[in-house]
């Protein structure tokens, strides 16, 4: 058993890709580089911090149907479907609110974005409409689309597909705690994934064993607002504030994009509603409350070999 690992910076986080293989081969490096290329491509297309990204070009063209790339179409479509599923608890139209809450800096250039064009009206996900046939998206009101809870998961899934297509079945992709684990680790065991203790961040509150599944965690400790004390990057669009009581929410799903979007969505929905929604969708979820109680969907602990 050999493994090779690479780290790179993308989407304002460190991405680590590790491939385990029977043979030592240059193909591992090539596969990781290709996977990284997909991360960069998706970042470039879906970033709201880059005025030239395809996403921002679309955002600036409210009022008319815009033809977009398949990648962007699918990402926005997925975000809006998630919004519909959660009655707007998750809402991709909140980009401008996020800017105002201090999440406005391009981590690569250091430049701040200020999309005042979106200040005229209050928009929601219902102001986005899709023309499937012509692959066009219409913004009925000006808005900044925020795909930060979709793009990373999507990049992980596409990277995983690229690595699989190179013939590897045992690997792990970790993008700042959003993880897809395929096959087994170098000790031929399912990958062990720790879930951070929100109060003592160097410690785990528990761990799970994953194989061919993704886990993504939304934590209130991860990105505090520099503008609003006590607020963080998780915004409840209905109340225009960060949810209380819940410290972190992890979702396990067959796809990272599902785990990513729904860890954010169920965090915002809160403990009871969020867990209920996850049960309903047959996704697995564990939430840590601010008082460090562990709450999870039925059978979560047995299913994923929870170890605390």
């Amino acid at each position: 058993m050999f493994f090779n690992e690479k780290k790179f910076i993308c989407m304002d986080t460190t991405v680590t890709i590790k491939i385990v293989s029977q043979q030592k081969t240059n193909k591992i490096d090539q596969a990781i580089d290709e996977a990284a290329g997909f991360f960069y491509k998706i970042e470039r297309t879906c970033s709201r911090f880059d005025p030239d990204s395809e996403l921002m070009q679309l955002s600036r063209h409210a009022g008319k149907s815009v033809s977009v790339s398949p990648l962007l179409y699918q990402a926005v479509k997925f975000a809006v479907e998630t919004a519909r599923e959660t009655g707007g608890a998750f809402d991709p139209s909140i980009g401008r609110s996020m800017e105002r809450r201090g999440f406005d800096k391009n981590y690569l250039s250091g430049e701040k974005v200020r999309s005042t064009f979106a200040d005229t009206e209050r928009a929601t996900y219902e102001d986005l409409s899709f023309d499937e046939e012509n692959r066009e998206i219409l913004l009925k009101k000006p808005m900044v689309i925020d795909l930060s809870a979709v793009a990373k998961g999507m990049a992980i899934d596409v990277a995983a597909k690229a690595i699989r297509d190179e013939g590897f079945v045992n690997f792990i992709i970790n993008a700042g705690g959003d993880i897809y684990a395929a096959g087994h680790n170098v000790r031929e065991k399912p990958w062990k994934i720790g879930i951070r203790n929100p109060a003592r961040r160097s410690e785990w509150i528990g761990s799970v064993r994953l194989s061919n599944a993704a886990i993504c965690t939304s934590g209130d400790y991860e990105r505090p607002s520099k503008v609003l004390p006590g607020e963080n990057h998780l915004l409840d669009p209905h109340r225009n504030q960060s949810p209380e009581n819940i410290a972190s929410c992890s979702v396990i799903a067959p796809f990272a994009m599902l785990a990513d979007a729904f860890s954010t969505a169920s965090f915002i929905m809160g403990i009871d509603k969020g867990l209920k929604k996850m049960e309903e969708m047959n996704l697995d979820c564990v939430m840590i409350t601010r008082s460090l109680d562990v709450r999870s969907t039925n059978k979560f602990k047995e299913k994923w070999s929870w170890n605390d």
Partner: protein
Amino acid sequence: MSKLSPKWITLCTAAIGLAYTAGYVVTEPKAAAVSLATQSSVQSGVNGSQNQGTPNSQGNSGSQGNQSSQAPSNSQSGQSSQGSSQTQSQSGYKDGTYTGQGMNQIGSVAVSVTIKQGKIASVQITDCTTSYPQSAIDPLPAQVVSRQNANVDNVSGATESTNDFVTAVQQALSQAQA
């Protein structure tokens, strides 16, 4: 994993497939590899030098000698004891028929997988719209049944179709996981 609705499977599969097809960017100054490690491990592994068909816990065919055919019990951490940590996915398939789909630039492969008594009883290719004839991947369903996992041999010249088939089977199996 329990059954995820087909709607979400389709949304994810389409997004991933199309983003993959769109290709990637090659140059990126930040793409510096921070660390690069190659290690050999002491694990000898029972299954020697199989090509890419390494034991994949989608239901590996017992290469770790785990004979349990019941749904494995809870929270085995398997830290030290060899072969105890293949979690629920080893044999915990739920009976029923599950579908999955894999796609690429030129088409897609859809399958239907039937689980009986926790085992993969049959696999059918329900749709094949790739540029290769379906006959290229006709032998694959039998391999899945005999190996009880999605690790089929690559079909030379029809890699895409094979990958799609594997993706489709994995997707079906992920729904079948108890």
